């Protein structure tokens, strides 16, 4: 018999907002179960990719074009940012977690990620900006 706790697991969404200008695509939520992975972009950016939300990007009969958001963060802090996002995505309580919201459009501050210092240098880690790439942006 399956444990009841299995059914208590809820979906988690990451919220990101490029700015407080409410144009199409400036704010977005990404579902944890759509997450496909993350890689470094350059020395201060990491891209987080998700299966696309819109059929025009699903690539039916071909390859999908992933939706994504790219976080700007402290130089060299890619691993720490990935760890914080992984902890947020795997949160079994579910709900909405602000990944990056520089203008505080959600009212929960710039980020709710639990960012640890860079272990090798002790440098404090922060996220400062986000770029969203979906069908709307």
């Amino acid at each position: 018999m399956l444990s009841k706790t299995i059914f208590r697991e809820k979906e988690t969404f990451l919220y990101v907002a490029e700015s407080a200008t409410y144009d199409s695509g400036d704010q977005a939520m990404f579902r944890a179960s759509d997450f496909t992975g993350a890689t470094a972009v350059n020395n201060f950016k990491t891209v987080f990719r998700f299966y696309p939300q819109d059929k025009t990007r699903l690539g039916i009969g071909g390859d999908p074009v992933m939706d994504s958001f790219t976080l700007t963060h402290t130089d060299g802090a890619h691993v720490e940012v990935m760890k914080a996002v992984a902890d947020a995505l795997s949160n079994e309580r579910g709900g909405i977690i602000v990944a990056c919201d520089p203008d505080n459009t959600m009212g929960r501050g710039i980020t709710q990620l639990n960012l640890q210092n860079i272990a090798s240098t002790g440098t404090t880690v922060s996220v400062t900006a986000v770029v969203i790439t979906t069908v709307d942006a």
Partner: protein
Amino acid sequence: MKYIIANDQLTTGAIDAADEIVMFPRSSVLSIDLSSNTGTDIHAQSTSNVDSTVVLSIGHATVDSFTGDRAQRQMIDDIVKIINMENHSRGYNVIFDALNNVSILNATTLGVDEA
């Protein structure tokens, strides 16, 4: 879902591109195979292209010796433990992080290749 992180760079200043650090869901792991007598590869679905793979190439002692053979088998056991998140309550597990000196037992090097 839990996630796996791998980093093949030694310094923060050296991190500047894909193929250096990757994070993916543990369910994306496709296979583990022996690439040479000093290397074992972990294949996972690419983060950006469903037709491609991420390959984590782990270097280790040669398997042409008794100790090397044991080292490789031990390492595969450790990789499976990482994937299964045994004894790990966080949302991620690090399979190799050259920057922070994190490594599974017997692994000497790592190469990240996001095809």
